[in-house]
């Protein structure tokens, strides 16, 4: 079966808006973690990694954005940057799909609904304009309206590996002819609700998490989008559930299964991106990769620079690898390995082949 190719991508991230800002931040290893403005963010932590100066109305205009939540704004902004690169018809398309990863939608919008219900004069005194954004597929549905994306519209959750599972899901849409091109990625917003949930859920022995946010979107097709040349092909994605607590073995299984499925050897690998998760799973993941690959192929994790971005984290890893490939001629035709682990028990590995330039 043919391999899907990534024609273009964009990201709205703590490095700033757009692909160039992400590429610069990640290749220059600039930390985007900083003190949070206490007037803007009523959160239990002092630091975070937010998209600098991101304002929905400044980014998207005043029309249709009055009650829009942040995750929807980030999604529409990012998808817009991707569509600018290709010939997306003004009146939309029936064969362009959107596959958007999430952790639980907008906790901010959904918890606001509950909060209003519990504290208002009447339990049904909730803001109706918030309701569509408080549904988990709100961002994907609104983004479809914005750009006329009438193909399959799927909101998926698979923890940190979501970006990679999204590639598999998108590949199936392409192979079965359900879409011609797929906008595939994930989005996560910084919010007081998400910060509080993270804070409350922390075990006493765990350090406070530095939360990040943003959106990364890849344009995937069996052919490159018209007018573009492929940046990379998606050779294989493998996932595995950890049943015995051995995260290193699970990551190893995923990597080896992915490599053998396309008959590649570890020495063909140009770069390896790991999740950089600070927990035991992340440490085991890293340890196993150092056994499998030469030390110089291991890319320092994006999470060190942009914080914990949950469902977008592996999409940001893919974006990092593509950013590095652009600057490194040695990447041409070679393999990038991306791995991730999630507390739910899932480990994943993806293989991309960087296009010949």
């Amino acid at each position, binding site marked *: 079966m043919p391999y899907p190719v990534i024609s273009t991508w964009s990201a709205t991230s703590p490095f700033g808006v757009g692909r160039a800002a992400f590429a610069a931040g990640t290749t220059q290893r600039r930390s985007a973690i900083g003190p949070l403005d206490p007037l803007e963010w009523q959160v239990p932590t002092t630091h975070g990694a937010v998209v600098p100066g991101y304002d929905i109305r400044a980014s998207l205009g005043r029309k249709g954005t009055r009650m829009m939540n942040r995750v929807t704004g980030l999604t529409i902004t990012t998808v817009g940057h991707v569509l600018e690169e290709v010939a997306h018809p003004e009146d939309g398309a029936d064969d362009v799909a959107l596959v958007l990863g999430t952790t639980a939608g907008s906790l901010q919008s959904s918890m606001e609904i509950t909060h209003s219900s519990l504290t208002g004069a009447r339990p049904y005194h909730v803001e109706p304009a918030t309701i569509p954004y408080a549904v988990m597929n709100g961002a994907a549905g609104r983004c479809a309206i914005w750009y006329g994306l009438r193909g399959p519209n799927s909101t998926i959750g698979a923890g940190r590996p979501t970006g990679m599972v999204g590639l598999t899901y998108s590949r199936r849409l392409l192979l079965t002819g359900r879409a011609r091109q797929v906008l595939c990625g994930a989005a996560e917003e910084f919010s007081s609700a998400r910060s509080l949930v993270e804070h409350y859920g922390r075990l006493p022995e765990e350090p406070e998490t530095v939360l990040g946010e943003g959106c990364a979107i890849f344009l995937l097709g069996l052919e490159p989008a018209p007018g573009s040349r492929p940046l990379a092909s998606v050779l294989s994605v493998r996932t*595995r559930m950890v049943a015995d607590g051995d995260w290193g073995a699970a990551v190893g299984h995923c990597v080896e299964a992915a490599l053998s499925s396309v008959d590649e050897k570890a020495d063909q690998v140009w770069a390896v991106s790991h999740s950089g998760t600070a927990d035991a799973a992340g440490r085991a993941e890293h340890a196993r990769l150092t056994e499998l690959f030469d030390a110089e192929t291991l890319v320092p994790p994006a999470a060190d620079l942009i914080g914990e971005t949950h469902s977008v984290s592996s999409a940001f890893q893919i974006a990092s690898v593509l950013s590095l490939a652009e600057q490194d001629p040695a990447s041409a035709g070679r393999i990038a390995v991306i791995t991730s682990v999630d507390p*739910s028990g899932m480990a994943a590995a993806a293989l991309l082949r960087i296009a010949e330039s």
Partner: protein
Amino acid sequence: MNSTLARADSRPASQRVVITGLGVFSSIGTGVAEFTEGLRTGRSNVAPITAFDTSGFEYANGAEVAGFEPEKWIHHSPVKELGRATQFSVAAARMAVEDAGLADEDLRGLRGQISIGTTDGESRDADTLVAQRVAGDPQRVDRALARRLGVNGLSAAVAREFSLTDVEALTLGTACSAGNYSVGNGFDAIRVGDADFALCGGADAICLKNFVSFYRLGTVAPDVCRPFDKDRRGLINSEGAGVVMLESLESALARGARIYSEVLGYGLSCDAHHPAVPDQSSVARCMTSALENAGVAPHEVDLISAHGTGTKANDTTEARAIRDIYDNLPPRTISLKSMLGHAMGAASALATIACSLAITHGFIPPTINHVETDPECEIDCVPNESVPADLRIVQNNGLAFGGNNSVVVLGRHDKEAR
């Protein structure tokens, strides 16, 4: 167009996907036997909601799953550490595997796909967290709840329960059509060779956030759900889970499995029009793509299980879209939500199960609470009493907020005919 059955037959058995196990927790019954009986007799269990404090609402009826005993079904996971929606999904997966005549070990050597659809995930836990915070004592906020809000837990927990390692577990958050999305994803995963089997379905637990949202939008019925009736007043919130075991026909035949139905195909479309109001042309486009994917001509369809929420907007738009596609001669078109209530992410999964049982047992479940069909919804909704019927092909509609439509087409598997 070729007949469906010929088309499905023309696929190799390895690429034909059949349903061989059903797991169901619904407001009208738990398990295949009770659920089938409920569908046949037109059962409904609408009552005042007990899941949260409903004082201050003018009305708050729902259809809850009464007497849910997750411990009976969840054997290898700490039940109390799972939210109610996850308990539903794991219990329904367990029931589907048992119903398929499989042991846990049978699955472990295989490559699996686990897809669970949901509207709200563990929003009931999120409601509790907000309530604890409103109560003002941070010490009372429950850490365990905060750690399980990620919706991927609904599918990952299924993998953990069965100690499945070679699986992809994902949760589809496509609201009220998520169950159909999941069945479709499992169907594709098996057909493209990504999986040997798939556990697919949907799960949701009644929660305040969801109820108040629909209530505020004026779409909750004060008493009961009356789809396609001229006096319909909205939906009734419900909950539960439906999970099906999917495998290739080749695998089902090899192990002599009972086959409830064959998934002939499915379709997806997005309205890209309005977040909460369905779009007729997009719903029609979704049905067309599902029928084309299944290789089925409209006149071959014996029954449509409509999304049929019982709201003014949905039923009119959906009925019109159906009449468009069916050249004004639609087959009988029922709404299971008249009995089950709207189980959100579980709804179309429960409907997939109901359609499979209707095919297996040769009857059409009724649309209950029906007095007079709305002239705007010109369909035969099989009012109030089930009827015997020889069903070969059934179409199951799922529509959702966000304009996320998904339609699944199921067919009868006749051993002799193939």
